[in-house]
C-alpha cells in the first residue's frame, strides 16, 4: 500500500475490520456452527481469524472482499482444529471426520452463504436464532445464548445483563450448548408444522431482549440500553427472513413505537416522565413512521389469513394510538380500551387487565376505571404490584378523593422497586 504509513494502514485495516465484523459476524458464526457442529469452535475460529486479519491486513493490504476473506480464514482455522483434534484421537475416527469435511468442502458450498431468494428460510442466521430459542431450553438460557452467540456480546457483558458473575454465566452457556449437542436439538429452521409455534418462541426472546434494554433507561449502564437497538435490529432481520408474518412485523412495529419515546421517558435528573407529560416533538418520528408502515404491513398480511389478530399485533395497534396522537388529550382511549379487551382474550394477564382499566378511566372517567379494577378483582393477583396501587391512587385523585388516594400512593411507595419510581410517587404524595 504505497503512500500510506504503516500507522495509517493499521488504522484503515482496523476500521474495515470493525465494520466487517459488525455486519458479517452473525452470518459467519452461524455458518461455522452448521458446518462444524461446534459452537465454541465457531466463536474461537472467528476470533482467531480477526486476530490474523489485524496482523496481516496492514502489511498486505485489505482484501477486496473482506467478508469472504474472514469467512474463509475462519473456516480453515476451524477445519484445522477439527483435524488436529481428530489426529489426537484414533485414526479411524480421523478418517471419518476428514471424509465428512471433504464432502462438505467439495459440496460446492459458498464461503459466504447468500440468502437463497427462492427460500429465505434457508439461512444460517435464522437456523442459529431458532436453535438458540428452542423451547427445550430454559427461557433464561435462550436469552443468554442469543445474547452471546447471535448478538455477539462477550460472556462478561451477558453476565452483566443477568446480574450474575462471569463464571456463573460461563457455566450456564456451557451447559446450554452442551444440551443442544447431547439432546439432539436440530440446527435448523423448523418445518412448516412447527414454524408458527417456534416463531412465537423466537419473538418472545426478542421482545424480552428489547424490554430488558428499554426498561433499563439511561445512566451509567451502557450495555442494557444498547440491547433495545440490538433487539430491533434482530427483529428487523427476522422480519426480512420470515416474510409476511403478521406477528413478526407487529413486534417490529411495537418495538419501534416504544423506542420512539426513549429520549423523553426520563428527565435530565433521571426522573420518570409520564406519557401524558412527555414532549411529543422530541419523539423519534422516523421510528414512528417506520412502525406505522410495519403495522400496516402486518394488518395487510393478516387479512388473507383470516386469523384473529395475535398479541403483538394488538399491542402494536395500542402503541400506534399513543404514538400517533398529537396530544395526550387527543388520544383515542376508547379504541385502546377495546384493543386491551381483545388482548386480554388472546393473551390473558392481570397486567393487561390493569392497562385496560387505565384506558377505560381515560375514556369514560376515573369512576369507570375504578369499577373495572374491582370487577376484575386485580387485588388477588397484583396485590403486591406497586403499579396497581399507584393506578388506583391516581384514579382516586382524579375522582376527587384525595384521602383515599393518599393511602394507595403510600402503599405503592412501599412496594416500588426503584428509586426513580419512589421519587415519582413521593412527588405525588407531596402534591396531595
Amino acid at each position, binding site marked *: 500500500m504505497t503512500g500510506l504509513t504503516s500507522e495509517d494502514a493499521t488504522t484503515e485495516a482496523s476500521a474495515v475490520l470493525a465494520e466487517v465484523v459488525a455486519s458479517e459476524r452473525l452470518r459467519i458464526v452461524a455458518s461455522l456452527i452448521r458446518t462444524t457442529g461446534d459452537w465454541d469452535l465457531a466463536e474461537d475460529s472467528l476470533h482467531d481469524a480477526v486476530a490474523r486479519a489485524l496482523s496481516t491486513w496492514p502489511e498486505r493490504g485489505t482484501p477486496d472482499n473482506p467478508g469472504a476473506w474472514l469467512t474463509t480464514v475462519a473456516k480453515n482455522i476451524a477445519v484445522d482444529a477439527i483435524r488436529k483434534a481428530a489426529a489426537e484421537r484414533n485414526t479411524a475416527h480421523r478418517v471419518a471426520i476428514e471424509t465428512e469435511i471433504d464432502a462438505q468442502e467439495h459440496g460446492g458450498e459458498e464461503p459466504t452463504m447468500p440468502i437463497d431468494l427462492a427460500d429465505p428460510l434457508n439461512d444460517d442466521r435464522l437456523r442459529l436464532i431458532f436453535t438458540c430459542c*428452542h423451547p427445550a431450553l430454559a427461557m433464561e438460557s435462550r436469552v443468554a445464548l442469543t445474547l452471546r452467540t447471535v448478538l455477539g456480546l462477550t460472556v462478561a457483558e451477558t453476565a452483566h445483563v443477568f446480574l450474575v458473575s462471569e463464571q456463573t454465566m460461563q457455566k450456564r452457556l456451557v451447559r446450554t450448548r452442551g444440551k443442544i449437542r*447431547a439432546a*439432539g436439538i*436440530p440446527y435448523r429452521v423448523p418445518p412448516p408444522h412447527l414454524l408458527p409455534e417456534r416463531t412465537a418462541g423466537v419473538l418472545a426472546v426478542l421482545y424480552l431482549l428489547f424490554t430488558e434494554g428499554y426498561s433499563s433507561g439511561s445512566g451509567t449502564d451502557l450495555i442494557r440500553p444498547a440491547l433495545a437497538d440490538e433487539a430491533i435490529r434482530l427483529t428487523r432481520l427476522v422480519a426480512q427472513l420470515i416474510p409476511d408474518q403478521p406477528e413478526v412485523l407487529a413486534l417490529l412495529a411495537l418495538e419501534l413505537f416504544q423506542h420512539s419515546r426513549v429520549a423523553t421517558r426520563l428527565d435530565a435528573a433521571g426522573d420518570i416522565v409520564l406519557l401524558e407529560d412527555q414532549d411529543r416533538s422530541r419523539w423519534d418520528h422516523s421510528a414512528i413512521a417506520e412502525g406505522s408502515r410495519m403495522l400496516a404491513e402486518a394488518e395487510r398480511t393478516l387479512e388473507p389469513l383470516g386469523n384473529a389478530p395475535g398479541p403483538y399485533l394488538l399491542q402494536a395497534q395500542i402503541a400506534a394510538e399513543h404514538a400517533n396522537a398529537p396530544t395526550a388529550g387527543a388520544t383515542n382511549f376508547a379504541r385502546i380500551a377495546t384493543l386491551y379487551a381483545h388482548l386480554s382474550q388472546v393473551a390473558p394477564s392481570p397486567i393487561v387487565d390493569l392497562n385496560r382499566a387505565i384506558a377505560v378511566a381515560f375514556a369514560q372517567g376515573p369512576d369507570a376505571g375504578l369499577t373495572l379494577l374491582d370487577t376484575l378483582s386485580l387485588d388477588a393477583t397484583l396485590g403486591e404490584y406497586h403499579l396497581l396501587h399507584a393506578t388506583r391512587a391516581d384514579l382516586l385523585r382524579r375522582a376527587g378523593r384525595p384521602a383515599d388516594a393518599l393511602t394507595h400512593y403510600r402503599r405503592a411507595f412501599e412496594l416500588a422497586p426503584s428509586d426513580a419510581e419512589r421519587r415519582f410517587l413521593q412527588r405525588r404524595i407531596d402534591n396531595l
Partner: protein
Amino acid sequence: MEYLLLIVDDPAAPTYVPEEDNIQEWVADLDRRGASRVGNRLRPPSDATTVTVRDGKTILTDGPFTESKETIAGFDLIDVENLDEALEIAAAHPMARFGRVEVRPVWPFE
C-alpha cells in the same frame, strides 16, 4: 438418535379416561416412522427391588430407589431424527396427558 421416553405416573395429573387412551394409534405411528426399538409397561414400585453393593456386600431394599409420588410406569426406546421428533412423539403419548413423559437422550459408548 436414540431417546428413552420415561412414562411417568403423576397422581396430580388429570384422571385417566380409558376412552381418551390413544396408545394403539401411538404405537401404529411409531411403526410407521420406523422409530420403535422396545417399550413396555412396568409393574408398580411396590414390586420393585433396589440393589446396592457397598464394601462388597449386597444390600437389597424392597421398593424403589426414591420415595417419590411420581413413579416410572413404563418406557419406550425410540430411534428418531432429532429431539424435535422425539418431543412430537412424546407429546402424542396418552401419558403426556394423564401423567408426564420425560425424554432422555441415550448416551452411547463410543
